[in-house]
């Protein structure tokens, strides 16, 4: 296999292993777009997104539709897919 083919394959794998999502923060009207490796943990990605929005969130995670994602799962294990729309929320509790 040629070097060029191998490089092309690497680029292809990299594309497959990253996803681009749209992220809203409740306190902002406009969303932002992020591209992350699918192996990133939800909590890490949510913290990065919160920082980009300039918001202070306790235990940040994502809400996808009605579901609140487990911060400890990877994005792929949590079911996040290419072009998903997510919302940053706090996973902290009350009482």
């Amino acid at each position, binding site marked *: 296999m040629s070097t060029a083919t191998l490089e092309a394959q690497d680029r292809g794998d990299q594309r497959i292993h990253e996803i681009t999502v749209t992220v809203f923060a409740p306190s902002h009207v406009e969303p932002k777009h992020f591209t992350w490796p699918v192996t990133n943990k939800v909590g890490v990605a949510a913290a990065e997104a919160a920082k980009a929005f300039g918001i*202070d969130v306790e235990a940040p995670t994502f809400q996808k539709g*009605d579901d*609140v994602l487990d*911060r400890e799962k990877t994005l792929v294990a949590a079911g996040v897919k290419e072009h998903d729309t997510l919302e940053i929320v*706090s*996973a*902290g*509790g*009350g*009482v």
Partner: protein
Amino acid sequence: MTVPKDVTIAVVEDELLAADAYARRHGWSLTWLKDDLVLLADGKHPADQSSMRWHAHLGGYRAFPPAWTCFQREEGKDAFKSRFPKAGSVPGGASSIFHSAGVICAPFNRLAFQEHSGPHADWGGPAQWMNVRGHVRATVLAEMLAQIIIHLKFSPGWQ
């Protein structure tokens, strides 16, 4: 500490666009009663799909958090009665914000503080609401609404 009414109105109206956008994305609607400093959030309890209303009294906001109360629409009537959601298990082991005493037990609710007959004497008083850590954090109306809607998803019904 007293917050002039026009200051609270300006602060709320600055937040309202984002809060309204969040509410719409999640099937809720907001009504801002400026003269009364009251924000109403209307939606449905996911457990039984009954219509519900959260009432946030915003006097003194943001020096103090809103006072949140909850109502359920009476079936077949254009009237609401005071009711409160049951606490449910929230993923990740977090405690529900819905307290058995019928208050949102989070720093963003004035009624959670002992000074307002709430259970918390350990949060430094309502003026310290934005400095309380280790609990759910919501410092603007849209974030509060998000927490209420999320915790409602795990509520099994009404108290």
